[in-house]
């Protein structure tokens, strides 16, 4: 008999972020609407950021800004590097939305399969 620890400790940042990431992956694979695909990529991005922010967190740590208790400060490295991830997420969303707008304007559909069919049958 395996004892599965489904307690309050099980729902932490790591498990939630993994679930978010795979929800986003499912959206990328199954959705036919391009706009929903872009939203799913965003959900995957959020999952990755949440995972890396919470992977080394301790419940007793304090924010790394101006604290006198040096040894209890949270690790500032993932927080600093996740700004990069957020900025790249914004950039990917903006560029893909722009390309989606011009594709929609040219071919008149937001469905992947219809778009590919129309482009191939020209």
């Amino acid at each position, binding site marked *: 008999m395996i004892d599965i620890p489904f307690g309050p400790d099980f729902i932490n940042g790591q498990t939630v972020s993994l679930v978010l990431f*795979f929800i986003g992956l499912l959206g990328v694979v*199954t959705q036919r609407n391009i706009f929903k695909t872009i939203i799913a990529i965003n959900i995957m991005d959020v999952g990755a950021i949440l995972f890396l922010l919470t992977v080394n967190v301790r419940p007793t740590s304090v924010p790394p*800004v*101006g604290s006198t208790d040096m040894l209890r400060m949270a*690790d500032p490295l993932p927080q*600093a590097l996740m700004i990069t991830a957020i900025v790249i997420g914004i950039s990917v969303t903006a560029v893909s939305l722009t390309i989606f707008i011009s594709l929609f304007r040219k071919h008149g559909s937001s469905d992947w399969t219809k778009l590919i069919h129309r482009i191939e049958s020209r």
Partner: protein
Amino acid sequence: MSRISAAVLVSGIIVFGVIIAFELAVAPRTADPLNHAPLTLRDTGAVNAVSAILFDYRALDTLGEATVILMTATVVAFLTPRAKASMLAVRLSSIVLYGVVLLLPFITILGIAVMAHGHVSPGGGFTGGVIVATSTVFYAVVYSVGGQQSYVIAPAANKLIENTAMTAFIGVGLLGLGLAGSFLANAQTGIPLGTPGELLSAGTIPMLNLISGVKVGVGLGIIVMSLFLE
């Protein structure tokens, strides 16, 4: 659901289970990884450890990040060549029109204050830049009459500011290269670090905060204004 998506789902669930099992099996951590937080005050003089890492230890990454924003603004502005934004041709009530006039200076000043205090309090160049970009977007949404965009800063000036900020960032890096022999060096160049906690302290970190804040504010403004143009 097609066969590929089923395969991806199953493999994802397997990976998820393996990671959770590993997490539960190897639960006690043996050693703590190196925490930079106690070192940053001594090395850089910045109270905000995140800002110290972003603009001193990993400043080259931040330069790359600024390049990503520049490139995105370029690509988005290139792909939307239209000059009319029909989604902005909405008449708003006078409450919105006068409320935004009252709000705009406070939003801009808050953004500049967050940029300038990036090394002594939470925030920094990126957060302040996003707040400044908010004021630009507010103005465009409220005062664009009949689909003609109205700007706080003209597009040509936007371009000039963005390029100047990028050049200034590289210039600060070259200053470190000239004085200390390493690109984007801070304390090694001999710039006085000052008293930690004051507005003028931490060497080049406040300069880089302001530069990246201006860059992010203008860049996000360009991106959002271009997306208004359908």
